[in-house]
């Protein structure tokens, strides 16, 4: 469903720096994949390539049968509506309430008002935020904000949810709630890609682990563990 074919990504700011080199990776529908690696190893670049925020310098990134690197920028919104993205810094719209933030993703996808009224409360209930629907992001805790972001990511029933360090700003209790939530979503059939550098999470999950170091995939194991190189 997502595949990287000999992908390289260089950044050119004065001198050329290598972010990713010779990445070959296949992610199947329904998988739960954890991407591990130190800060700067290239996890975020990998995520940016999948959502089309960056273009690969070499190779192909194929998402749902489309070559993302070759997509025109005006076709990107359509791709992004099929993906759910969750970030460390939540990225909620500050001037919209919890309900509106989640509804926004559906509105963007052109869904009917009636459907939005029906589905948003269901999803907010699932992430445990039914009571907080009319609060603004600034009135929420970090864990709550991240649950809003997950609700927004899953509301359009995407093929895949990509979470880039979703627990980086959270305390242990909230961290586990977010991980449990992601596991639950995965059990319902959605592919999950989780980038993290938390050893505890990786080891507790016991899912496929792709380790990245200095821009290269150094290990790819089913039921893997976090191994520091």
């Amino acid at each position, binding site marked *: 469903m997502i595949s990287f074919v000999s992908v390289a990504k260089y950044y050119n700011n004065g001198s050329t720096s290598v972010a990713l080199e010779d990445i070959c990776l296949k992610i199947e529908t329904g998988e739960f994949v954890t991407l591990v690696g130190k800060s700067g190893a290239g996890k975020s670049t990998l995520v940016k390539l999948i959502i089309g925020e960056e273009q690969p310098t070499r190779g192909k990134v194929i998402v749902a049968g489309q070559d993302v690197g070759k997509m025109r920028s005006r076709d990107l*919104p*359509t791709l992004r509506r099929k993906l759910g993205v969750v970030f460390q810094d939540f*990225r909620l*719209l500050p*001037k*919209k309430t919890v309900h509106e933030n989640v509804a926004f993703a559906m509105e963007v996808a*052109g869904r009917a008002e009636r459907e939005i009224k029906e589905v948003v409360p269901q999803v907010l209930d699932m992430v445990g935020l039914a009571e907080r629907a009319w609060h603004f992001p600034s009135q929420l805790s970090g864990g709550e904000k991240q649950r809003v972001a997950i609700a927004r990511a899953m509301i359009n029933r995407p093929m895949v949810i990509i979470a880039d360090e979703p627990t980086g700003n959270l305390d242990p209790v909230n961290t586990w709630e977010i991980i449990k939530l992601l596991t639950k979503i995965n059990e319902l059939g959605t592919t999950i890609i989780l980038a993290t550098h938390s050893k505890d999470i990786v080891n507790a999950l016991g899912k496929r682990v792709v380790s990245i170091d200095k821009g290269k995939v150094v290990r790819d194991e089913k039921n893997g563990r976090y191994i520091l190189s």
Partner: protein
Amino acid sequence: MATFLSRIFKYGWQNFSRGKWLSAATLVIIVLALVVFEILIVFTVITKTSLALLQDKIDISVYFKPATPEDEMFKVKKAIEALPETAQVEYISRDKALTIFKEAHKDDVAISQALAELNDNPLSPVLNIKAKQPSQYATIASELERNDWKPLTQKITYRQNQTIIDRLSKIIDITNRVGLILTVLLTLTAIVITFNTVSLAIYSNREEIGIMRLVGAPNSLISGPYMVEGIIYGVMGAVISLALFWPAIYWAAPYMKYFLTDLDLRAYLFEHFFALVGYQLVFGIALGVISSNFAIQKYLKI
């Protein structure tokens, strides 16, 4: 499509109403720009009326010798009317001049008595000439002097009033030019300030724009609300600035009348109500929308 538009309007309104102080600051700037615009309109009206008033007071009078036959005078009148600079020529016969003179001095016993004692009409027939532009009197005057009408005329007032007429025509010219420069400068200032403020507001939203793109919002859905916000600024700015400006002018109008008796600003306001509201709306909305559009192009990379 209807849902899409209603969503754009909803987001635009949310941007405006939830932006709090940034919206308020932007609105204040737009109101100020519009008030400047209104002041310019009234300034133009005042200078135009006062200049028209002055221009109306300038003319050249040609006094003929009393014995001049009437058909000779009509020849002169025709010739002057034929000049391209002439706006209007009025012939006043001796009898008419006397009637006007009597009417003007009917309360003055001494003059009435003096007139009654004279057997003859002491006044000369006159041609009152108005030029199209104050600067054209010189041409008309020289035309009058150059021709072979000289023996017919007794007095031409132009030479007497020459300095005043020249000075007036210069003042009128300068006022027009300064007014135009002032209008252009102030309008530009208002536009630049508004543009900067709106840009700043959108720049502060660049993270939100990034988030919307991430969720997969098409550009039209991202930029549309800013356009709507621009329209809201324009409409609200127009309403507020009129609410401030209208009472101020209404109150000041009677005082203006002391200086310029012909100027009735209140009447002007009521006569031009819809035009003024229209200008305000068009100018306000254009300011808001154009500024928003510039800022979006800059930060959205469409």
